[in-house]
């Protein structure tokens, strides 16, 4: 009996990847000044192209045709065709753009400018700046609520999450979080907002819809045996839309924390590459991809088994990651 089942199981396992579409993974390489392109099925780099100086934050338009790249040292956001990798045009971004997020409709683009304490709003159709919103010192993280009503910007030295109304561009709420907030991520149902504090070593779980304004419900902390607490520095955060997991990149500890999204507790730590920074999910949400800045590679993690499948070499100092559905 056993002998008969085994080949069948093996065969099914062999077929599984074929069911998942081959998405395209884009990775910005901060030091190579390039974007690496990888195939999500083979997990190998298929192309690499030049994008300008110091590319960091990247994002893809909802229709999948455009790749937006923050070229930090060129003070611009470059827009590329996701199929031909050709530069289409550049957008004004304000100085030193680090991270950019699109409105769920695909327009406008919200950019954080660290040098000027501003969030710049760029109309990607008109290709011009339509608003500049003064925020705290060194704005960095940028989250957009799924309904598009709010953007949340985190300021690294002010240590706040600023809730900005996308209609009026007014800051409506400020939530004080732990030291050096790096990233803001809304769950896909918009019920929770996760804000990572790199130096504070915590992730604040915020109820964005609380009656009297957004409020911190919980702070997630981390502990890994044999790792000094100072090295557990949360940066990138992403959640699965089934409400099961939240993943947190823990920087120089070289680990990704797996959070049970119901209890908001760390349940596992996955060893990836050095200085793990940003995260992305494939369209089927079966794969998690992390950029590992100091080992010049990306890790592919199987979400069903919570196992690291493979690490693949990309350019130097990979920073941002975005995945285009097939």
């Amino acid at each position: 009996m056993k002998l008969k089942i085994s080949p069948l199981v093996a065969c099914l396992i062999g077929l599984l990847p074929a069911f998942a579409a081959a998405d395209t993974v884009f990775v910005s390489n901060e030091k190579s000044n390039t974007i690496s392109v990888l195939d999500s099925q083979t997990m190998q780099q298929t192309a690499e192209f030049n994008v300008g100086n110091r590319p960091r934050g990247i994002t893809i338009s909802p229709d999948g045709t455009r790749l937006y790249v923050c070229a930090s040292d060129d003070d611009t956001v470059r827009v590329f065709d996701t199929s031909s990798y050709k530069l289409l045009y550049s957008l004004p971004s304000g100085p030193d753009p680090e991270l950019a997020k699109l409105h769920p409709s695909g327009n406008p683009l919200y950019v954080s400018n660290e040098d000027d304490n501003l969030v710049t709003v760029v109309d990607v159709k008109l290709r011009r700046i339509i608003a500049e919103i003064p925020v705290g010192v060194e704005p960095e993280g940028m989250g957009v609520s799924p309904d598009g009503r709010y953007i949340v910007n985190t300021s690294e030295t002010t240590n706040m999450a600023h809730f900005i109304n996308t209609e009026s561009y007014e800051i409506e709420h400020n939530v004080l979080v732990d030291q050096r907030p790096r990233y803001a991520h809304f769950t896909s149902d918009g019920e929770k907002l996760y804000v990572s504090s790199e130096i504070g070593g915590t992730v604040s779980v915020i109820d964005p819809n609380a009656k009297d304004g957004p409020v911190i419900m919980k702070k997630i902390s981390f502990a890994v045996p044999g790792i000094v607490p100072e090295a557990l520095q949360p940066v990138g955060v992403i959640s699965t839309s089934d409400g099961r997991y939240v993943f947190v990149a823990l920087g120089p500890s070289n680990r990704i924390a797996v959070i049970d999204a119901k209890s908001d507790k760390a349940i596992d730590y996955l060893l990836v590459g050095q200085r793990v920074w940003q995260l992305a999910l494939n369209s089927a949400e079966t794969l998690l991809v992390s950029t590992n800045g100091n080992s010049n590679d990306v890790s592919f993690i199987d979400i069903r088994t919570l196992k690291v499948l493979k690490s693949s070499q990309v350019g130097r100092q990979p920073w941002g990651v975005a995945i285009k559905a097939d």
Partner: protein
Amino acid sequence: MLLTVITVNMATAWADEIAAAILVVKVQEPLPISRLDLPPEDLGFAGARLALQDNQTTGQFQNQQFVLHERLASPQSAPTVLAELMAQGLRFIAVLAPAETLLQLSTKAGKQSLLINVSAPENNLRGHLCRSNILHIAPSRAMLTDALVQYLVWKRWTQVSLIAGSHAKDLLLANSYRASLHKFGANLDHNLTYQDTGGGRRSDTGHVLVQRQMPVFTQPLPKSDILIAADESNVFGAHLPYHTWKPSLVAGSSGLRPTSWHPALEAWGATQFQRRFEAVTNRHMRPEDYQAWMALRVLGEAASRTRSSDVKKLKAYILSPDFEMAAFKGQKLTFRRWNGQLRQPVLLTHDKVLISVSPQEGFLHQHSLLDTLGQDQADSKCDQFGQGS
């Protein structure tokens, strides 16, 4: 709509004011060897002003208004200036002053005030001369010398020669190096003292004499792994590299230097911080500026977390386990509760780039790796702060 406007106005009118002062005590010092090291006029003030801006930006979201009073004094006039500041109700005062002046000011300030030591590196100020109304931002000499020696040990460059200047602070620095070498198991091969004979330190074609004298002066030194210069007075250190009798690496006050800040630092988001400073000052940030910035940021951080302007509450929070600060060093900075010293990584740099950051890998500690730098709790002779790590 009208109602909204009124609320905003009332809120502004009722904003909580948090006032602080920075007192810079200028001491007449001989000119440095290199004109690149001439102290800028706004040294210290510039960092404090940047912190005020940062605090204000944060404060506007919390209805807190920060105010900074700037005063310049001589060691003689400093106590009077402090009295004037206190008469204006100021209780949080950042001070750039020599240790003796700082201690005088501490006596005058009393328990109701808090002084923040921005520049004095004396180990004693954190030891038996510590005061409960002084917190130290400046790293102590012991933190700096430990930081360098940890790196030398990590490199296995453990045979060391030491040249000390002849001024009191040079001798204290040399003693601190000897203690650090002993602490981390490195060996002192040879000691030399460089006598400062006074006179001008710079002259046209002065290098001709230096090129003849420095090799002869260093001729007695054995072939060590590295030569440490203890020259806080800035008399000879800069002339050591390339002038020694035998080829020699130089560290300490010249060559590879331990410091709290360097304008070339780009890690941990420091680039944008450097740029913000340079945009308003048109110069590079020096360690004193960084330390003054931190002094005022400590206030800003404590005020925004406690929502208070009361110095007693602020001090209690700053020394509590809840206090932590991000300051472009890649990890949170906290205070040692047994002597009021800020824990911080120490940069090791040469002129153009960062070489390393201490503590080094492998130097372990039961509480905080940062406590491998400087006087640890067990060795502390400070009895002004009560217990607790």
